[in-house]
Each structure stands twice: as C-alpha cells, then as structure tokens.
C-alpha cells in the first residue's frame, strides 16, 4: 500500500467500514491513555537527549581551547616566575596567547566560594595564567617538562581531566535519552499489538460474519487499523501537548543551576516534539496491521 493510500485509509476512511466493528468504549480509552502516556514520556526523553547534547557541546567548546597555568611561589618570586612563565609560553608553538589574570579577576573567581569581602591581597593566592590554544593545540607533556626546568612553581592544567569525563557523561546521558525514546516506541508498538489482538479476538464473530458475506481481509483489517491509528494519534497528540507544557514549566537555564535547569528545548528543537504524534500513529498503523494480518491468516 502506498503512503498516500495509507493516509487516505486512515483519515478519510470509510464510514461504513468503521461501523462494522462494534464500538469499544473501555479499550479505546486504554489505547488513548497508553498513547498519551508514552508521548508524554517521549517528550521528556527527547528534551533530555537534546539538552545533554547541547551540554556536551558547550562543555567541549568552552574547555577545549583553553588551559590554565597556576604558579605558587613565595611572595618575592611570584612576579619573576610569572614573567618567566609568560615568556616561555610566548615561545611555545601551539599557544595563541597567554595572559596573567589580574587581582580583580582572581577575586571574582573566588567570590562564589569565599564571598566578596575576601581580602585577597593578604592571602597567599597562586597566580593564574590563562592560555588560549591555537586549533592545533600544544604538546602538554613537553610544556610540562620545560616548565619544570624553568618555572618550578608552575602547574599546568590543560582541563582534559575535567572535560573528558564531563563530556563522556553528557554523551551517555544523550544516548540514554535516545535509547529511552526507542524503548518507548517499542513499548507503544507492543501495547497496541496487545490491544489490537484483544480487539480482534473479541470481535471473532464479527470477522466470521464479514468473511462469510465476502469481505476481503484487507477490508476487515482496515476497520481495525484505522481505529487504532486514530486513537494513537489523538492520544499521542494530547500527551505531547501536556509533555511540552510540562517542559515549559521547568525553570529556565541559569548559570548557577548547572545542567539540571537546562532541561528543555532550544530553537528548532521545539519542532521535534511535533514528530511524536505522527510517529505514534505510524507505529500503531504498522502494529495493528501486522496483528490483523496475522490473526486473519489463521482463520478459516
């Protein structure tokens, strides 16, 4: 059956064909409920996947091209070592620029931890040097060796040990989201198959009568397929609307809140939940069609 045929079967249908199967109030509501719930969950899984994807990218981008040099030295040697380190960095291939952070910047970095009133001047705080890399990057091991020789108080932190696990965690989280979406789709198919099988079994007499008077299998199957497809579509549409509403109600991303508050959609991502109801309908169409063909083929 071509796509166009399938669509016209489902949406235009045949009012008479729809009537040959008796209406079933209770199971109809259950199918609607299942489709709705699954769509709701799918929206969340989608939001999780997209948000963790964005997070992984952001962390990667922010941390990838920069590293930090920390110089701890007795007060008298601090300036000299800083100078030496900057000079050394300037001559290192792969380093785009190196800049010693000012006192104000260092205080701003510490403020979240110690409060704004901290007298930084009186504390033996190490000097930080921000290094921006070129696209090719520098040889971290080589730089460490040279620093050891020339600036004994310097410790190089190229952020790799922060970035890698975080990126990996975000990547896993995104994969988990997609796996959840797949599982939700498969579960929807399974539940609709069960519901369709139950409906086909409950209507065995109807099917027997229809066969007796010369109805083709495709006609009988259509009556069931159309029903379940429309139920899945309506249920999933409702669930999607509720799911998107719930995502909207989540607090917006804030710098202090970390990744948890970033859960949601951004930009074109808002269009993705629109795919959930049609996908649910396609799943229901395929599942009911397969169930109906299987059941009918077993009949005499």
């Amino acid at each position, binding site marked *: 059956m071509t796509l166009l045929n399938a669509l016209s079967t489902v949406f235009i249908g045949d009012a008479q064909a729809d009537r040959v199967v008796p209406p079933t109030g209770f199971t109809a509501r259950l199918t609607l409920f299942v489709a709705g719930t699954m769509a709701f969950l799918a929206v969340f899984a989608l939001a999780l996947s997209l948000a963790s994807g964005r997070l992984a990218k952001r962390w990667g981008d922010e941390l990838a091209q920069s590293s930090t040099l920390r110089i701890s030295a007795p007060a008298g040697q601090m300036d000299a070592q800083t100078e030496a380190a900057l000079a050394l960095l300037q001559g290192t291939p792969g380093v785009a620029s190196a800049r010693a952070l000012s006192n104000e910047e260092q205080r701003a970095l510490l403020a979240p931890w110690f409060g704004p009133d901290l007298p930084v001047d009186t504390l033996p705080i190490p000097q930080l040097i921000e290094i921006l890399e070129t696209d090719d990057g520098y040889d971290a091991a080589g730089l460490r060796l040279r620093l050891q020789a020339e600036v004994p108080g310097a410790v190089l932190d190229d952020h790799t040990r922060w970035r890698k696990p975080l990126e990996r965690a975000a990547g896993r989280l995104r994969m988990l989201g997609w796996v959840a979406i797949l599982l939700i789709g498969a579960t929807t198919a399974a539940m609709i198959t069960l519901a369709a099988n139950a409906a086909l079994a409950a209507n065995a007499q109807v099917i027997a009568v*229809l066969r007796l*008077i010369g109805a083709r299998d495709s006609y009988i199957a259509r009556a069931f397929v159309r029903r379940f497809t429309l139920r899945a579509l309506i249920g999933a549409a409702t669930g999607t609307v509720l799911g998107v509403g719930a995502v909207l109600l989540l607090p917006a991303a804030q710098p202090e809140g970390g990744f948890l508050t970033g859960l949601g959609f951004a930009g074109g991502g808002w269009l993705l939940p629109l795919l959930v109801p049609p996908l649910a309908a396609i799943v229901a169409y395929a599942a009911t069609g397969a169930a109906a063909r299987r059941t009918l083929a077993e009949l005499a």
Partner: protein
Amino acid sequence: MIELENIAYNYGGGELLSEISLKLAPGSFHFLTGPSGSGKTTFLKLCYGALTPTAGSARLFGQDVRQMDRDGHAMARRRIGVVHQDCQFLDHLPVADNVALPLTVSGRDSLDQVSNLKELLNWVGLGNRASALPPELSGGERQRAALARAVIMSPEVVLADEPTGNVDWEMSQRLLQLLVELNRMGKTILIATHDLNLIRTAKHHVQARVLRISNRKLQLAGADL
C-alpha cells in the same frame, strides 16, 4: 458453477463424506437431505469453499478451491449466497445495515441500492423491522433477514442450511416460496433440510431434485417422496 469431483472429507476421525460428485447446473433446484449428523452442513461448506475437500477436487466457478487464495474465496462468496442454520449478524447494526452488509464490504453500496434494499426487505416481510437490531428479531425474522442478506448481491447460487429449522410450518412455507421465486428468477438453489413435508410441498411448485446423504455417499433420491 459448483462442481465436486469425487471428493471426500474427514475431520480427522474417519471419513464423513466420500466419493461425492455433483455438478450444480445454473437454474437448478436441489434439496439435500439425510439424517442429523450425516454431513449436510459439511457438504454445504464444501460447496462454498469454507472447507477444502481432503480428497478429490472442488471447483467454484471454474476455479479449483485449492488454488484460491483468501481474496479469491472472498470473491467467490460474493457470488454464492449462504443462509446458515444459526444465522449470525453484526448485533450492533440494525437489520437494514446487516442486510446491506455484502454491498458495503464489496464497495457497491450506492444510493440506488437504498430503494432496492427497501424492496428486498418488503419482499422478505421485514419492511417494518428495518431499524430493529438482530437480537430483537424472532427466529423466523432472523431466517428471512439472512435470506435477504444472502441474495442482496444477486448471487448466482443460494445455499440454505436448514432455513426452516427454527420456524413454524407457515413460516417455512413462506421461506420456501421466497426460494422458489428466486429460482424462477434464474438462481441456482440448494437447500439442506430434513423436513420431508417441505420437500413435498416444493415439488408442487418447482422441478426439484432431491439428493440424500446416506452411508457417507451422495445419492439421487427417487420419486418415493
């Protein structure tokens, strides 16, 4: 149109029917009789392809039953009207819709059929019961509704399994009269019944042949009836 050639059928526990050959010629009128359990219903099912013979060959409208797929069977059913002993309907649809169901499922339900349907319902005496639901019908009304449903597609053959089984004598005669009228319109009729009175009555109105199942075989009964 229906040709059975040396067919046999068994349900797994010995043969119920064997060495049966029959050709239903267009326009013929047959009775099928025999004791209960002799296989009348099985024989009818073989005639409309609901069962496949375990031996021999059955041909419907020139097509071997074994070679027909499920759609082929559906198409053959549209040319054979069947009235069952216990007629089944779609209980949630009114009588008129049930009678028109063969048209509906074959996509032939058009507006000009609506007046035909009315006429047909009047013909079987159900004109005023058109909007009743099947469970509300009496036994005789169900049989007549089933007959109307069997003939609405204007089939070439009408097979009836004990159509008068659940109805009184007067109703039996009415049903018989309807079947005789159909035969006069050129339809081939095969009625399974063990009601010999019915057969005798029919013989006054129509040239009917009587087939009898006895000892698993089909015999042409003589003029002894």
